């Protein structure tokens, strides 16, 4: 288990990045700096703290610095200043040997364009990380078979990546990353290259997979819908800065600015609002056991229950105690709001 602490991280592309840090320039906007000095500020003073075991989504449009951020975490890009503490060690201070070890054992990355080795079979691809660690052939193949099964690719071991569909190729990418048993999984727009149906399916599978593997995942995407499906928390980036950080619910119900609001516009509130936020105090301790929901589940999931029962839905926590009830009109209210959103969009 591991904690990622990103402190005052800057990345400036260009031949003279230091000029950005001059006192008179430090507050200039990205475009001013680009016009005046021909330097591109990709990350501007990013501070994030990512908890162990959480799926942390970094969302932004192209050019927002999200890819730079994730590449900096594994030092495919060297940041200009700041620090990245992983397991309380500053990744940016690592020498070559330490960096190699860090990449071999602590983090693994899944790439947007898969980055599979075309000359290697699926099995050899999945085993690559272990091969680099000089694990002997038998042990690494066994591990590779294990992770391939986990991602649903049993039977494809001896195929080459070019013989697989896009979705399957990305499963190989995920298997390759999982094979090294990393603490942290970095996923750089892993599903962007897939077609929409597969994309949705992969998100759901990732969510399930995460329940078994329980890794710290840093997930990059430009799609808020995807961010909400997979993310425990979301950081929205714009022009190299984090403009809002919060749970999917916080972001959708309470966007920090008009930029975020525009993104969240077509996300129905029922998809992100958790039950605990709309429940009210129960009038009595008796409740119908057939129609209970957990406080952390989202409203959308309880709509089928509403159709089955006419009564308020009881909310029961993990200790099996009644903590509240959700009256029908509260749900209807949210559904109506979501519908109005969709309507006004047209």
């Amino acid at each position, binding site marked *: 288990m591991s904690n990622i602490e990103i402190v005052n991280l800057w990345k400036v592309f260009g031949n003279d990045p230091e000029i950005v840090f001059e006192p008179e320039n430090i507050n200039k906007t990205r475009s001013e700096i680009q016009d005046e000095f021909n330097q591109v500020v990709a990350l501007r003073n990013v501070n994030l703290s990512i908890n162990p075991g959480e799926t942390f989504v970094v969302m932004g449009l192209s050019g927002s610095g999200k890819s730079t951020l994730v590449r900096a975490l594994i030092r495919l890009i060297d940041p200009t200043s700041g620090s990245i503490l992983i397991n309380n060690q500053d990744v940016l201070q690592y020498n070559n040997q330490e960096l190699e070890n860090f990449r071999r054992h602590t983090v693994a*990355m899944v790439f947007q364009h898969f980055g599979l080795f075309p000359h290697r079979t699926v099995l050899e691809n999945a085993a*690559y*990380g272990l091969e680099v660690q000089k694990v002997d052939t038998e042990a690494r193949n066994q591990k590779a078979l294990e992770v391939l099964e986990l991602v649903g690719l049993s039977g494809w071991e001896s195929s080459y990546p070019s013989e697989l569909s896009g979705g399957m190729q990305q499963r190989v990418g995920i298997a390759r990353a999982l094979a090294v048993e990393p603490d942290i999984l970095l996923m750089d727009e892993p599903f962007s290259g897939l077609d929409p149906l597969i994309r949705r399916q992969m998100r759901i599978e990732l969510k399930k997979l995460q329940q078994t593997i329980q890794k710290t995942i840093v997930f990059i995407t430009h799609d808020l819908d995807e961010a909400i499906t997979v993310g425990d928390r979301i950081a929205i980036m714009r022009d190299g800065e984090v403009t809002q950080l919060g749970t999917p619910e916080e972001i959708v119900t309470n966007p920090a600015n008009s930029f975020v609001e525009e993104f969240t516009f077509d996300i129905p509130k029922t998809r992100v609002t958790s039950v605990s936020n709309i429940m009210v105090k129960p009038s009595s301790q008796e409740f119908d056991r057939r129609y209970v929901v957990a406080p952390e589940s989202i409203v959308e999931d309880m709509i089928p229950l509403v159709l089955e029962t006419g009564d308020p839905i009881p909310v029961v926590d993990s200790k099996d105690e009644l903590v509240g009830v959700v009256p029908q009109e509260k749900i209807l209210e949210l559904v109506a709001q979501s519908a109005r959103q969709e309507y006004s969009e047209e």
Partner: protein
Amino acid sequence: MSVTLEKEKLSTQESKENDKSYIIKYGISLVVFVIVMGLSWVIHLMKITQITDFPVNFSPPVTNAIDDFVDFLVVNFAWIFDWMSDQAKVLIGKIRDFLIWVPWPFTILAIMYTGWKVASRNVGIGSAIALLLLGLFNLWVSAMVTIAIMVIAVLISIVIGIPLGIIAASSNRFDAAIKPILDGMQTMPSFVYLVPGIMFFGLGNVAAILATVLYAIPPCIRLTNLGIRQVDIAVVEAGTAFGSNRMQLLTKVQIPMAIPTIMAGINQTVMMALAMVTIAAMVGAGGLGADVFRAMGQLEQGDAVIAGLGIVVLAIVIDRISQGYINNRNQTTSIE
């Protein structure tokens, strides 16, 4: 609609203006040309040698320096060259003797099998027929000698060329340094390479091998370099992200992915080696080239043509088999 029409009008106007300016430009050029020709005529008429001849000749000191340097090498390092020459002679002799010693049907069957397996059925059968024709036209021994020299030259080229290509791919500075040298090597008239061979090793097959290696090595270096540099950056990045060190990245990712390009380089090296082995007959290399050379010297056109066609046939066989190998390989481990 009207806007596009106007644009068209504008563009025709522009082109008319361009026409005018072309006439002026070419007119000026023509006038200048006529004046220069007239002046040249006058200069020759008046025999002004200061203008018709160059004032200084730098050549003698430079050529003398080169001569001295080569003399120095030959005198002081003769034992190295002699030793190398002896070893090479023995090796060529052994390969040649072996190739001649194996009865021709076995050789033809072996080549047919290789062609069939590595390329296709047609290539296999075609190669067999081609070799059979070489034998029937009494060119078998010469062909084997040519192959012996070529094989050694190609092996040396690969052993030196591929590592140089790898270094060039990983160091931009080395690449920049080697590029003009390779350009020079490829534009140099091929028989110039025969000179250093004779200087150091005297007439014979060894000189031919040196010349052949010098002539045939550039594509091997270039395409190894290119192949490694062309490897998809995303894949290299993935390799790096999993903690590969430089050596692992090179041997597990970059070189395997560059192999189709490297093979294309080797194919070119083989073909160039064959071309050079023929020309190297001028410095006493045996084989088909020597047959052509001798026949031409004795004005026997028939023999010259037959031996020349023999070279062509050999070249086609080697090229088809190696091309077939490259194509099949590309298909099985196709990149994307």
